[in-house]
Structure formats: C-alpha cells, structure tokens
C-alpha cells in the first residue's frame, strides 16, 4: 500500500488541527496522524459517571462576541468554517493571596477596559493614571503586532521607529520593569499580574509585550469557552479537515521521519510508510529531532537549540463532579486565582517543587456553562503548575498517594480561602498529573506549556527568527512549540501560521 501526501501533520492537537485544515483548504493533500484515539491533544474531554470534564481549558482569549470577533474566532469560524457554540465567561477573575499582611488580596475583576480601570481604582485609589498608561501601551503593542504580523516577517525598521516607538521602547522589557516605569502602584501591579500563571513565567522574566497583549485581549474581547468542553473545538476542526479533503489516522503513531539527501522524504507510521516532502509537527522538537530522526540527520545547531530551551510548566489538575449546585456551595465566581503572594518570582520558584500550598487556578465550570452538568450538581477543576520535572521523580509505588495528597491540599486550601465546603460533596474525582499529560500528549516531562516563553525565548524574537529557526528543511512546528507560544489561542494561530509557511515552502520547492 503506497500513501503519498503533500504534507503529513504529526499530532492532532490544536495546532495540528488548524494546520491540517488550513493546508487542506489551500488544496493540498494532507494526512493527519494522531497516536491517541481522538483529536485535540489537551483540548478534549472525558466522562466519569454523569459528568463530562474539561481537561485543560480555562478560557480562550481573542475569541470575542460574534459582532466583534477576535483573531481566534475569525480563524476558526470564518477562515476554517468550524461551527462552535461559544459561551462567555462572566468575570475576569477573583484573585486571592493567602499570606497575611499588607499584601493580602481578595478582589474580583471584571472584563471590559472601563470596568476594569474603575474596579482597580476602587481597590487602589490613585491607580487610574497608571492603568491608563498601561492600556495605552497595550494599544501600541497591539498595533505594532498587527503591523509585524501583516509584514510577513519583513517589518520595516523605519516604520517601526516612526509609528511604533512606544512598542519598541517597552517591547523588549520584562513586565516588572515596564510596570515600574509607568509608576503603577504596587498593589495595582499585584492585581494586574493575576494572569501570570497562564504563562508560567514570573513578571521579572515575562516579556511585557506578550503579557500586555494577552491582558488587553481578555479585557477588550472577554473570555469564551465552547459549550461541549474543548472536545467540541477539536471535533469541529476535525470534521473541517475531513470536509476539506484531509485524511485523519487515529491510533497511529509517527515513528520516524524518513530523510533522503538531507530532505524530508516521508513519515514511517505504525500503518506503513507515507511519502511526503513536508512535515508539520504538532509535537515537541525533542521528539522529532531526538526520537524520530537519526542523530546523523540532525545538525548540531538544531540539537543545541533544543537543549538550550527550557521545558515549560507542567500541569496538575484535580477534576471534581459535585452533588450540589454552585449556588448551594456558595461558589459565586468562574475563575479563581489563589497565590501565596503576588511576588511572582517567589511564587514561580515555589512551583519548582512540591510545597504545602500550591498556587491554584480554579474554575467552577457551571458559572459560565450552567448546564454543563446534571441538575443539582456542578463541576470544578483545580490546576497548579510545576516548573521542574518533580513528578518524574515520584516512584510508581508512591504515585497514587502523592497525587491524592496534592489534590486534597488544593481542595482544602480553596475551602479555607473561599470559605466554602467542597470535600463532602465529591461524587466523581479524577486527578491528572504531568505523567497523565505525558501519557496522552507525549510531551517531554508532560509539559503543558511546551518551551517556556521566559527570558530570551519569548514570542517577539521567535517571530523575528522564523527563518533561522528552520534548520532542517521540510519540518515545521505547530501547536505550543510554534513561534506564537503556547495557550489555546496561540496554538490555533500557530497552526495557521505554520500552514502558511509550509505553503511557501511548497511553492519554493516547486520553483
């Protein structure tokens, strides 16, 4: 049996799905291979008893309402034609810090620029001016990113200097540095930093342009989730891939990338060899260059590149199906961030290992999706991050009790901080550790956040180095390992970007 395709996409995660759909839409023959039996990677769902849980999504940014769509809604619905039933998330977040003293916080922040500034002013009188400065910088950044995006990697330095001077001034700095420069009051900074855990990188290491763009998208477009868990996103895209002529093979692992004369010649799968000259990998470069190619076919520069990069945060999630409603339990909010302090450097360092009170980003799904569980019940998920492979050091013997211990601490911390009772109402519980995520995604160390975007490896230089990052011709990366970094919205956009670059590769090869 001889199979041949214009492109083979390895991995049906968000980036793989959007890349496959984009390539198919451009008229290319595409084979999408996925080792698991369903699409989505992290964007999936699972059923326990009478509950269907969301494995990873808290909220998507850059979706926006139908009459004011963000980039992600535009890509999924207008460009790729996927039909998704979106639900808005009611408020931005409730932020709680647990350390006693002046740093102690318990605030609820809304979406909407004006509402956010007003609320901030009510918590931190005198913060308005700095918030306005922050938002103005956000606008500059959005405008500059739009220009850079439209320039196709050929941004004119003169235009940047002339029209995007503020972006150039702040775009290279860390969040901490810029917030200090615009003289934002300490307390307002702490409240604003709540979303830092969506990157896993402390404010000292986190690039300001990246952070500002994320916050701004949340504030202006709100946050959205699909009604039927993120599996709805994945099945919608999967059916588009097929409708556009793409072929999908589940339960099929890509084992090797076949090379001839330093160029991609095909992919060896458990179902046989597939001819292709173009691979889009929605999986880690570690897997592709470390495990799917012979060392001789991997240039030293490529190996150095991989080893220099830092594996991003690994996730740990507790899923609860509760036999009481959110109202009965007193859960008023959708999204809770609970940190010890808003000293994000300390907080990120605490995530290097096991600690008594892990930070948590907790969701009560019913607050955005009231009918997501049967009448009289609700669904919660508690997420924390690890910045090192500490779960890799847990023995098989200790595994179950360790994950239960961490889960129980997180639930008890939540009960104490929000002053609610949860434990007696657990009807279903599941706990996912980095080992679980490694099982389903094969990401190294079970990483949820691909390669960290901290410090030098942030989005802007990745985008500016698209050409030189491409060392082995014919292999490009989509998903969280792509240039626009990780997170749901970014991975879909990465897939589209990678498809565009691959189409350009095809054109060049034909020349």
């Amino acid at each position, binding site marked *: *049996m001889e199979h041949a395709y214009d492109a083979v996409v390895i991995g049906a995660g968000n980036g793989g799905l959007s890349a496959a759909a984009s390539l198919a839409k451009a008229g290319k023959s595409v084979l999408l291979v996925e080792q698991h*039996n*369903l699409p989505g990677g992290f964007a999936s*769902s*699972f*059923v*326990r*008893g009478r509950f*269907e849980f969301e494995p990873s999504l808290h909220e998507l940014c850059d979706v926006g309402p139908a009459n004011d769509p963000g980039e992600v809604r535009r890509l999924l619905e207008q460009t790729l034609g996927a039909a998704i039933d979106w639900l808005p998330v009611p408020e931005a977040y409730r932020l709680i810090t647990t350390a006693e003293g002046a740093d102690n916080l318990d605030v609820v922040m809304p979406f909407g620029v004006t509402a956010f500034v007003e609320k901030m002013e009510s918590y931190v009188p005198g913060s308005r001016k700095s918030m*306005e400065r922050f*938002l*103005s910088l956000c*606008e500059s950044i959005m405008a500059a990113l739009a220009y850079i995006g439209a320039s196709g990697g050929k941004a004119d330095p003169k235009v940047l200097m002339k029209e995007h*001077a503020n972006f*150039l001034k*702040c775009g*290279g700095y860390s969040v901490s540095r*810029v917030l200090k*420069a*615009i003289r934002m009051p300490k307390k307002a900074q702490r409240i604003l930093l709540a979303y830092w855990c969506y990157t896993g990188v402390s404010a000292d290491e986190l690039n300001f342009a990246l952070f500002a763009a994320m916050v701004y998208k949340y504030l202006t477009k709100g946050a959205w989730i699909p009604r*039927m*868990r993120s599996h*709805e996103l*994945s*099945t*919608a895209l999967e*059916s588009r891939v097929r409708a556009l002529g793409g072929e999908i*093979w*589940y*339960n099929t692992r890509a084992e090797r990338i076949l090379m001839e004369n330093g160029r991609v010649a095909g992919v060896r799968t458990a179902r046989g060899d597939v001819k292709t000259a173009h691979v889009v990998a929605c999986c880690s470069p*570690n*897997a592709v260059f*470390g*495990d799917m190619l012979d060392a001789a076919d991997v240039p030293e520069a490529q*190996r*150095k*590149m*991989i*080893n*220099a*990069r830092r594996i991003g945060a*690994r996730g740990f999630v507790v899923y609860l199906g509760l*036999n009481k409603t959110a109202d009965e339990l007193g859960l008023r909010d959708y999204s809770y961030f609970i940190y010890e302090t808003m000293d994000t450097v300390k907080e990120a360092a605490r995530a290097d290992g096991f600690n008594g009170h892990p930070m948590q980003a907790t969701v009560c799904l019913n607050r955005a999706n009231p009918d997501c569980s049967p009448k009289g019940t609700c669904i919660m998920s508690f997420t924390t991050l690890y910045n090192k*492979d500490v*779960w*890799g050091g847990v023995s*098989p*013997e200790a*595994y179950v009790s360790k994950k*239960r211990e961490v889960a129980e601490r997180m639930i008890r911390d939540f009960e104490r901080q929000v002053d609610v009772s949860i*434990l007696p109402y*657990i*009807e279903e519980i599941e706990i996912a550790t980095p*080992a679980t995520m*490694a*099982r389903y995604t094969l990401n*190294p*160390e079970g990483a949820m956040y691909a390669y960290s975007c901290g*410090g030098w490896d942030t989005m802007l230089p990745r985008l*500016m180095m698209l050409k030189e990052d491409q060392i082995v011709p014919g292999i490009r990366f989509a998903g969280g390992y792509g240039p626009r970094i990780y997170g749901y919205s970014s991975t879909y956009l990465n897939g589209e970007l990678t498809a565009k670059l691959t189409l350009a590769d095809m054109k060049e090869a034909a020349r």
Partner: protein
Amino acid sequence: MNDFNFHVKPLGFLDMLYFKKMVPARQKALSAGAPDQPTAVCGANRLAARLHPASQQLTISEVVEHGADAKTFVLTIEHPAPFRAGQYLSFRLQIGSSVLTRPYSVSSSPKLAFEGKYAVTIKRQMDGFASQWILDNWKAGDVVTASGPEGTFYYEPLRDAKHVIGLAGGCGITPFLSMAYAIRDGLEDFRLTLLYGSRKECDILYYSELAEIAKATDKVRIVHILSDERKEGYESGFITAERIREAGGGEPYSVFLCGPAAMYAFVDKELEKLKLEKKYIRHELYPAPASPAGLAGYPGGTKERYALTVRCFGETRTVPMRADETVLVALERAGIAVPSRCRGGECGCCRARLVSGEVFLPQLLDHRRMADAAAGYIHPCCSYPLGDLAVEVWPEQS
C-alpha cells in the same frame, strides 16, 4: 480607547536597545545549548510508561483450578504496571479468525504487582465465547497480551465513605478480593463488608482466601448469601435492602456492586429503597449484552443480517453483521482489531465514526462525549445495528 492621552515621556528611561538586543540574545542562548542528542522521553514520560503501558506481554506462570468451571491464572512480567484494587486488564485474544478483547478484574493484591505478578480469575460463562476458549486453552508457560490496568472501580478516600459495602455476585467477587488483599496488606485504608451472593456453596470462589483475610484484619468482613440452597453457616436468599442497611450499621457507607446483569437488575431496585445519594453507589462496568433483544427501547429484530462497510486508513471493505450483536463483535469476527477495553461503553477506547446508517445505543451504556454524539461518533462496543452501516475505524492491525 484613543482618548487616553499618553505620551512617550514616562517611558523615557526605557530604551529601544533592549528591543534590538532580543534577537542577538536569543541567538546567543540557543547556540550555547549542549550538543547532545535530545529526547522527549524524560522522567514523567518514563513514569507514564510504567503506569500506563500500551500493552503488556504476560507469561502464565501458574494455573489454579476452582472446580470445573473457574481458573485463576497467575501472570508474570518483570515490571507490571501498578494497579488500584478493583481495576481490570483487557486481554487481546485471537480465536480462529476473530480478534477480540476481554476485560478481567485483577484478583490479586496490588502489592503483588510490585513483585512482578498479577492474577486474574476467569469463570466459564454458559455461552461465553472467550471464557470457554481461555479455560480450555491457556496453560502455564503461554504468553498473553494485556492492556495496562484500567477502570475506575476502586476505593477513593476523597470521594467514598470510610465503610464500603461490596455487593458481589458470582465471579464479581474478583475485584473485591483484590480490595480485601489491599486492605490486609496496608495499601488501602477502609472498612470493607462483603455481601457475596452465590447460588450454592460449591459456587463460592475464594472461600478460604476470604476467610483468611477476614481473620487477619478486622477491617474486612464477609457475609456469604446462597440463593439456591440453605446451609448452616450461610445466609440464604438475596442481597436485599434490609441486608445492606444492616451491614451499614447506621454509619455512612458507600455501596460498590460487581456481578452479572441479573444481579444489578435486582440489587438496583433494592438500593432505591435505601435512598442513598448517587455518590455512594458505584457499579463496576455493565458489560454490553451479547444481544439487544429485550433491552428497553430496542426497536430492531434479531434475525436480520446486515452489511457493515468498514473504512480503515483509507481502504474500504464490507463485512457481514448480525442484528443481534454489537458493531464491535462484527468487526472482531472479521478480524479487524479495533482497540477496545471495557466493552461497556465507558472507556471510549473503541470510539469510531459512524459514516452512515443507524445504531441502537442503550441509554445506560451511552457514555459518549457530548461533542462526539453530536458529530456522529459511536462506541461500537455498545452499539447494535438497525440496518446496513458504514463506519470508519483505526484498528491496531487488520
């Protein structure tokens, strides 16, 4: 938003130099990486592979007979995946030209898995295609293929009451035996009262093992109930609400059930009388019945023969299918090794795309994801054809 009157000035002491430095800084950092061959197989990946192997090749090291109709197979492998008492292994079988799977609960202590061993106990089912074949064919020295441990029928202290009343029927004792061992071996900490229903004394599995465990730990108590004979030292009759309430002793308890469909049908009615919250009742899998005849709402016949068009990796073939069997069985008989584990609709492992045609899905067994149901996916293990069908599957081999 443009009304924010913000000028460059407050940023005066930040300069563009940093922006210009971003690319050189990244170039420098990337070229400073170690030249070693990278890998995606790290600590957590190795742990995942230990906990959830794709498959395990197990050697039958010992066969223990329990009368004429049940055998325990002791299975060895150097590093078995650890399991939680109550979980099952799904075995891959080739019988004639059929390729199929069967889930069997591990009956040994989870502690034994750390010493390289599992045990499964298999009872001959009257019309059981696989159980008959296994009992007649598996022998010491054979190597068999199993999945990693699967299933969610285990005690979880964050969810369940500290006292579990296990309701076991026939061969449904096996997961409870493992739980009892786990308690005795100090791997689990809960009280287990077993109400174990058998037809006759001679049908009781593991009588002496259970008695020994109950002697070794006061956390495990066994009550044998015989339905088809009266005998001294045994209760007689059925597992009733009254017996369960009495076993509970006025304290909170969880009820775990494992047994044949007929037992579930009877006991579920008894449980209704106790008005327990749903969270305190947990069933081991309801296996999909071999035939849909008699299932509530089943609109089809049992004698019809249909055509099943199967698309696998771009190739299409047509195989015969009977109205009184699941789509999974039709695939297996055709030698198409679609993945499957629980065979009761729960695990979703056999997820397949229904391209055309109609199937009957018993509501009790329909655990599909909402988006899958909306997109036309089925779990063939609990889908019965109502006419000719076309499906797309991604088998392990074909």
